């Protein structure tokens, strides 16, 4: 079988101006940092960006860079407050924002990947979230219809991948496994690429059939440095 390992640029060439992309990670943790940094250099623009939450508090890290570089036209997620550039651009009309509760956004993405039309959630009933949405009543209880969400490209972050695209996650995998199902083209950034069979079948968090491209990210040592620096700068570690 052909190896799915490709260069970062070859993988990112699938992302064109105006596309909808999902990026895994949670405030930068287990986010595909190398791919994001390269996307900033490549300058692809007018993106619709779907993430669970936004940048690391204060911005300047992970997906915050894409927004700061004005590459995002529309943001879909649960929060923008950690990214001052997102708040500013939303306020001045440059950035469109679509808010969903975090449990809703991840279910919308899951539905998109699982071939469901959507899900029925009690979250948001009686709030702004009702606007423009269908409702369904079951046994007297009202639920919002939250529809499926998909992307042209998803960039996820794993720890190891084999050449067939099987992903092993380490730590808090957050939105990555769910996004891997919900895009037409899936790029997995990992620290290690290994041969098929080197990841135990029980340890595969995302089956290789869902992944189109495997790319090497910054690697484990650099990742350790990046977070150490981030946390020291933000007075979380001393």
């Amino acid at each position, binding site marked *: 079988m052909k190896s799915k390992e490709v260069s970062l640029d070859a993988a990112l060439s699938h992302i064109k101006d105006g596309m909808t992309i999902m990026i895994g990670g949670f405030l930068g943790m287990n986010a595909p940092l190398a791919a994001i940094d390269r996307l900033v250099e490549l300058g692809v623009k007018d993106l619709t960006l779907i993430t669970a939450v936004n940048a690391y*508090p204060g911005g300047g890290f992970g997906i915050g860079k894409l927004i700061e570089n004005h590459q995002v036209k529309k943001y879909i997620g649960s929060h923008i407050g950690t990214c001052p550039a997102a708040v500013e651009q939303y306020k001045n009309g440059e950035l469109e924002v679509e*808010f969903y*509760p975090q*449990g809703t956004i991840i279910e919308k993405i899951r539905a998109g990947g699982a071939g469901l039309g959507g899900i029925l959630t009690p979250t948001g009933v009686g709030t702004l979230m009702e606007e423009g949405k269908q409702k369904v009543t079951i046994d007297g209880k009202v639920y919002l219809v939250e529809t499926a969400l998909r992307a042209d490209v998803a960039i996820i972050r794993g720890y190891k991948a084999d050449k067939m695209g099987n992903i092993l996650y*380490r730590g808090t995998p957050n939105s990555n496994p769910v996004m891997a199902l919900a895009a037409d083209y899936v790029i997995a950034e990992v620290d290690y690429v290994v041969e098929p069979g080197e990841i135990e079948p029980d340890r595969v968090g995302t089956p290789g059939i869902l992944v189109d491209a495997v790319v090497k990210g910054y690697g484990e040592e650099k990742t350790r440095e990046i977070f150490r620096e981030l*946390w020291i700068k933000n007075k*979380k570690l001393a």
Partner: protein
Amino acid sequence: MDARELIARRAAQEFKDGYVVNLGFGIPVLAAAYIPEGVEVILQAENGILNFETVTRLGEEDPYVADAACQPTRILPGGSTFDLATSFAIIRGGHVDATILGALEVDQEGNIANWALPLAPGKWSPGMGGAMDLLVGAKRVICTLQHTDKKGRSKILKKCTLPLSATKAVDLIITELAVMEVTPEGLVLKEVAPGVSVDQVKAATEADLIVKGPVPEMRL
């Protein structure tokens, strides 16, 4: 003791042994420092982790593990990590015993507004994050906030004015002045802070407060 510490200390008394709890940022996280002796709780964070603690010493961090604020985090024995869909299945599905959350406003029906500040017409910030699911899913919702805003206006209202996060969701409200319980009859004043009178609480509160007999003082 400043207002925040007082609220956090009182909130910590709501923890019961074996509780699975999710703590919002700010005062709720502070409460973890005051968990009573003999009470063990399991922390859940919405990014997908159970049974953890924050670390602050260089070298103790793991660059693949963080809490919901992306702080360096250590998983404790018996802890686990899982994806975001599972995390919110746990939250929305009623598997979290209690959540402590901050609020911008809360009202006597248990409605709560905690994510939407006006940014521009029809635009709100910063976003709800995981709060709306916690409000719907946690078995017990404890709301911690300062009783009044910087201009001295009550945040404990007859009716919230900001966009709601959830309706009829709050069980208990803890401020630096009082502990109030949301009941079918209305908002009941349960405790007052040390040295604070019932009248002082009433004067600082826009909501209708139900007072039943003598109101005990918080024990901190």
